[in-house]
């Protein structure tokens, strides 16, 4: 196959994708609206979003979803159609950090856009109703929007014999019961954050509450959007992706959308040049730290962590941990509390999970994943060791 025919294949593929998305959006358009007679334009205006701002935002999202620029109008249309989608957001064993992250949604006034465009039926941190009335809202939404709503779950889930470590509501139902019930008739299920994706901090050794991932208590497919918390962009982007395709996005081995989690933090890191040049921070606060050298030797887990932080950053591109001079702690990886610590030492210099003398690593990590990470780890450790000898700056300071 020559380069020319590769190009043609790609164009064909792109065309097919374009047609598929158009069809999906047309189908969506035919769905009854939740808010009748709502004009999109007036809605945008009410939210202080000009048409120009909105298209700018759609362009950014298109790029983030790794779609060709020509798809921007489709993304814009998808956002406009999202008022057909009721959202139920459940809190399990969690810290509310993921909800807080959602509230930081960037681009001008995009949070009010989301506030109005999706129909937020149940969200304990934001909703006005309380007690029985809140319970009613949940039951009503599950019933009225059967098979149509998107379920987003934040938090690990104490389950089975430990399910009573979380109860919600006047009937004392367990979190597990509520999550199962809401999962049953959801159109799509997103586990928002590392806790609902993999169990999270409460599931770290010795997991005293028997907390598990959402995917362990439902037999329906769950899209994991891990991170502690995931960036506001990954939460909203995943939602948009679903609205666009109407199907599950391409997922990796841990059910994470590939558009956000396909690359390692290390791949696009702003300090990558220093890694390649063998320039490392040896201790926090040293000359290397002041110059922005690579943080690998003070424990950065960027080489083992799949996420788009290095590209998209957090809080409207304000910063991200590595910019703030601290290594990545690997928070979007399964069981990172047990496999990535101590967070301020390079992992490749250690056995996995040495905090507990290796206990648990075999049981928790994906075998192939461990194999790959170990190979990468050795390579990186060797590189760091060699560059210590070959540091071109040696003797300069």
């Amino acid at each position: 196959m020559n380069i020319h025919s590769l190009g043609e294949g790609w164009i064909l593929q792109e065309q097919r994708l374009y047609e598929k998305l158009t069809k999906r959006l047309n189908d969506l358009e035919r769905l009854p609206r939740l808010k009748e007679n709502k004009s999109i334009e007036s809605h945008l205006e009410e939210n202080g979003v000009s048409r120009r701002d909105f298209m700018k935002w759609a362009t950014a999202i298109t790029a983030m979803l790794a779609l060709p620029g020509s798809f921007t109008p489709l993304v814009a249309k998808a956002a406009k159609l999202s008022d057909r989608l009721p959202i139920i957001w459940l809190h399990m064993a969690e810290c509310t950090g993921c909800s807080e992250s959602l509230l930081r949604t960037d681009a001008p006034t995009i949070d009010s856009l989301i506030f109005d465009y999706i129909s937020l039926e149940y969200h304990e941190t934001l909703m006005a109703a309380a007690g029985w009335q809140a319970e009613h809202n949940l039951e009503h939404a599950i019933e009225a929007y059967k098979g149509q709503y998107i379920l987003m779950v934040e938090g690990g889930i104490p389950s089975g014999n430990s399910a009573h470590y979380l109860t919600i509501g006047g009937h004392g139902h367990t979190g597990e019961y509520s999550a199962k019930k809401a999962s049953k008739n959801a159109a799509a299920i997103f586990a928002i954050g590392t806790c609902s994706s993999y169990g999270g901090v409460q599931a770290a050794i010795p997991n005293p509450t028997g907390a598990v991932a959402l995917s362990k208590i439902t037999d329906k497919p769950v899209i994991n959007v891990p991170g502690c918390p995931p960036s506001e962009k990954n939460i909203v982007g995943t939602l948009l992706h679903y609205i666009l395709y109407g199907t599950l996005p391409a997922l990796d081995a841990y059910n994470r959308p590939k558009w956000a989690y396909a690359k390692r933090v290390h791949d696009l890191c702003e300090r990558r040049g220093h890694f390649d040049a063998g320039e490392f921070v040896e201790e926090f606060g040293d000359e290397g730290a002041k110059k922005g050298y690579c943080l690998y030797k003070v424990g950065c887990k960027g080489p083992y962590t799949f996420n788009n932080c290095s590209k998209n950053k957090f809080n409207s591109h304000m910063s991200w941990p590595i910019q703030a001079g601290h290594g990545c702690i690997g928070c979007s990886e399964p069981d990172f509390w047990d496999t990535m610590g101590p967070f301020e030492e390079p992992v490749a210099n250690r056995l996995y999970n040495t905090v507990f003398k290796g206990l648990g690593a075999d049981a928790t990590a994906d075998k192939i994943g461990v194999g790959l990470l170990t190979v990468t780890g050795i390579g990186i450790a060797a590189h760091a060791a060699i560059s210590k000898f070959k540091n071109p700056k040696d003797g300069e300071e």
Partner: protein
Amino acid sequence: MANKRVIVDPITRIEGHLRIEVEVDENNVIQNAYSTSTLWRGLETIVKNRDPRDAGFLMQRICGVCTFSHYRAGIEAVEDALGIVPPLNAKLTRSLMNMALFMHDHVVHFYHLHGLDWVDVVSALDADPAKASKEAFDYAEFPIATGENDLKKVKTRVKEFVAKGQLGPFANAYWGHKTYRLTPEQNLILLSHYLKALEVQRELAKLMAMFGGKQPHPQSLTVGGVTCVMDLLDPSRMGEYLTLFKVGADFIENAYQADVVMAAKMFKDEPSVTAPAGVMNFMSHKEMQLNRTEFLFDSGIIENGDLAKVFEINEDLITEEATHSWYSDNEALHPYEGKTNPNYTGFRDMDTVGPDGKMIHSKVVDEKGKYSWIKSPRYDGKPMEVGPLAAILISYAKGNEKIVPLVNDFLAKTGLPKAALFTTLGRTAARMIQSRAIAKHGLEAFNTLIENLKVDQDTYTSYKIDKDKEYRGRFIGDVPRGMLSHWIRIKNGVVENYQAVVPSTWNAGPIDSLGQMGPYEANLVGLKVQDLSQPLEIIRVIHSFDPCIACAVHVMDKKGNDLGTYKVDPIYGLSC
């Protein structure tokens, strides 16, 4: 007629899972109240046997709202144990991040969590935007988002919501409740600020992320200092801090301050906000370092509401007990010695008041036995209220020159007596006064940092953990919800023991062995509920504390507990 039981579960617009049950007499006056946390996560157990340098990162995950508080507490407890003093630059950077957190937290609390207890969204529909716009000038010199056109827009938007019956997050609340007191115009002003505050909170979160890498869960503190040295040495970054800080300060002065004064004037005859605080003991720790020696808020204890005398805190007198908490060891112990083994006894069956006022079958707590995952902390055997009200009262009583004028200003503008501070209203006002103090004086820390950076660029102090040595240390400070302490013991180079005694534990804990109630419960007793199916008064009182329940629930087990035991039976088999 026998007492009736009313349940409010979930208490929404808080962090975590909280259930309140009350018993009312035939006049709907609350005779008994039970505060119950219904989630347990066990982070103090999980942190054990880990590298002490990881403690701050793990303990930070106690809460994504108090996202900086537990991070700093975890880091500084280890520093205290190891005897490390971080450089001044690091301390002041932590102060700048802390100020961002306080401003963010208090703004979000007033508008998005507590606001709907004061604001009747539906009533705003009858407002005259022109009149409202004019009224805004009565409370603020430069009102924000209250121009006539702004308010017209907000009104139209809400009108559409209501007309379509699709209220989204506003659905099914207690609109039209008799205890709402604002005029339609005032409701409209606050509603406009509710929306504006959504933007402002995002800016204030950026203010923290600037030196923290991200928010929630910033990542730039390390044992010995801070890691964001590049940001500190970048003048444009420092300029950005200054700019965003002023955005927050402006909103606090011209919206938040104005709205709280307006609400205070209108609600000052409403019993659910003016009843005296249930626990009249207040405790607060000094906080917010401004320069080498000075802090913005003071330490101390006030007993029985007496502002004439402030006692100093003796940290040896802090204990926690679990008589009515779902743990098996009841006795009151100091945090260094505390032990906690889960002993869940669940609910019992009973009929309670349902959403339409009729009795329905429900689960209720066993108030004679154990009924919450939160323990009961006591100081010298006494319950204490902690939080911004305590911080403000103590600084006020001590004659703090930065705080006294702000308290007096609030009292003068509202015409309220000092006694009005010791109430639900006072609690809400204190949070505003604290925000104002930070907005007015916080930049002193910023200026000190700039001056210091000219001569000293240290951000980190080196240290070594000796595996053969045993260490113990603690952090005590005041965070947005009140006095927070973390207690750590280190042995063999790993965490041997960890305990967090957090603000919401002090306030939300169940009764102790002497039958003494904590602040949540004590504040509810005596309160009259107008409509049992719409217990807005209960929510109003509880929200005034800004509950943070994931923070409040924690566990520690005693020295030498074998972690393997958990694997045998994680629920009941915890014998240590």
